[in-house]
């Protein structure tokens, strides 16, 4: 069995996001890039599956659609435990462009289980996995909060729309993973970092389908007034203010 984890390279959560002088692009200087938090959990789960099901999983491939600066994050994924990495050399402007590149790759290099994170922390579109599924013609499992292998079958925990389900499905599958898939993300150990240096990282040329959408400008959030403070001894006032002033209760 082969597992692929689609990973995205995003600014660290604590990064201050600001635009460049043109106002049309994010100023990427000084941005610290990290493995997208959901993809990191997906990768963690993939590695756990490989460890728990000895001999069942031949390899874990991480796939990224990104310019060359994404490679540091790919190396990190290798250090954590992926066997090899693929970078498709494109800087996608929207989810469609990213999904198209991934679908083209998987048409050529199929995998049994393809993990996608529920969203990326940069564009927050939550669309790439769903689009990849339709483009690649592979069954889509949204809201996946757990995955287990049992005798050639895949057991998937799905939490969506307030329901919690346990399902038995056969690969190939695209698993759109969310909270719960793994609890603590793996961090690279020294041995992993050394091993990552010699693991294969392949760069593929893009298909460049073209994007359907593009960001043409950015706007800062409107400034927020300071919080109105209420004394602890007068806490009941809060309910009154929420009712009469804010009118939310």
């Amino acid at each position, binding site marked *: 069995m082969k597992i692929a984890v689609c990973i995205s390279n995003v*600014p660290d959560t604590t990064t*201050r*996001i600001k*635009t460049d002088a043109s106002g049309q692009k994010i100023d990427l200087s000084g941005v610290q890039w990290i493995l997208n*938090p959901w993809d990191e959990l997906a990768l963690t789960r993939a590695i756990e599956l490989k460890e728990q099901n000895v001999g069942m999983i031949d390899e874990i491939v991480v796939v990224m659609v990104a310019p060359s600066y994404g490679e540091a994050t790919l190396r990190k994924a290798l250090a954590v435990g992926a066997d090899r990495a693929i970078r498709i050399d494109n800087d996608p402007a*929207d*989810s*469609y462009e990213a999904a198209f590149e991934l679908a083209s790759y998987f048409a050529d290099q199929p995998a049994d289980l393809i993990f996608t994170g529920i969203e990326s*922390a940069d564009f*927050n*579109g*939550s*669309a*790439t996995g*769903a*689009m990849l*599924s*339709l*483009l690649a013609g592979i*069954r*889509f499992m*949204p*809201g996946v909060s757990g995955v287990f292998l049992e005798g050639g079958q895949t*057991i998937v925990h*799905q939490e*969506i*729309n*307030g*329901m*919690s*389900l*346990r*399902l*038995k*499905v056969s690969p190939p599958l695209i698993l*759109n993973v969310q909270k*719960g898939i793994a609890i603590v993300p793996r961090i690279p150990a020294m041995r992993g970092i050394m091993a990552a240096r010699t693991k294969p990282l392949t760069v593929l040329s893009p298909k460049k389908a*073209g994007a*359907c*959408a*593009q*960001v*043409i*400008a*950015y*706007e800062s*959030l409107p400034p*927020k007034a300071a*919080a*109105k*403070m*209420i004394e*602890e001894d007068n*806490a009941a006032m*809060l*309910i009154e203010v*929420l009712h009469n002033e*804010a009118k*939310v*209760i």
Partner: protein
Amino acid sequence: MKTFVFTTTRDNKVPRSFFEALTYGGSLEGSEIIALVAGPLSQDQETEMQKFGRGQIFHFNQALPQWYDTFYYLHLIQSFFDEKGEPDLVVLGASEINQVLGPQIALKLSAGYVARVISLPIQQAPWRVKRYAYSGKIISHVELKTEKAVFLLSANVLSPIELGAGNFELWNALPAKGEGVEVLEIKRPESKQLLTEARIIVSGGRGMRGPEYWKPLEELAEALGGATACSRPVSDEGWRPHHEHVGQTGKIVAPDLYIACGISGAIQHLAGISGSRVIVAINKDPEAPIFQAAHYGIVGDVHKVLPVLVEAARRLK
């Protein structure tokens, strides 16, 4: 311009996000609404539909699959388009199901897709809308290169307007059979309200000190008719269930009122609540970053403050 709006029902009810989407679609110039509601509905919901409806609303009155089968819904929507014609615009209210369907409908229609839209379009040709990016840290203006568009709205971006101009009728189709999936177990969560749809959320952080202190928080939520939630450390510690976790890697919420009790306000948590209309912070540390995000604040001990709020909230009722 034909505007398609879609929702599934839950507990025989239509989510508010459907009426938000109808109001959004109906606010656009030259827009003619054609909507599809999939799933069983209770009687009073049909009255709601008349009240907030506009255009033509069709009701697919059949039980929906137990698990979330994208093939099923896509087939259903495709059958609808085959019969009623393809729309020029699709407006979807914020829901976990629409979040999955939106991108796929966009592909089917060769339409551009924009998620978490926060405003009416800046312009219609080409389409230009605003949305949050970088987990709520900035607003981006997105322009589509396609004639058709699919917009997934952020929750609570506008209030449904009563128009009473909807025509509501039944519509039927032969549903696709989902194959190759065996449902082993189904669990309904304890809470009735979905966090992503709740209008009022009372949320607790590590400052609550432990799961045994949650009672007043639950009482406040109940008195206000809201849902309970928590921060990441709380769900990681197992004090509260995972589905209550609000924040970047948990649920992204946008209620009218978010009351943060003993939550310091880490940036990951703020990313999950920035769409809230009013944020209240109760924390003993006056320097806690949550106060920067809050509209109202109380510096104090949650265990003293909460019972007072519960009493006041009950009196209000």
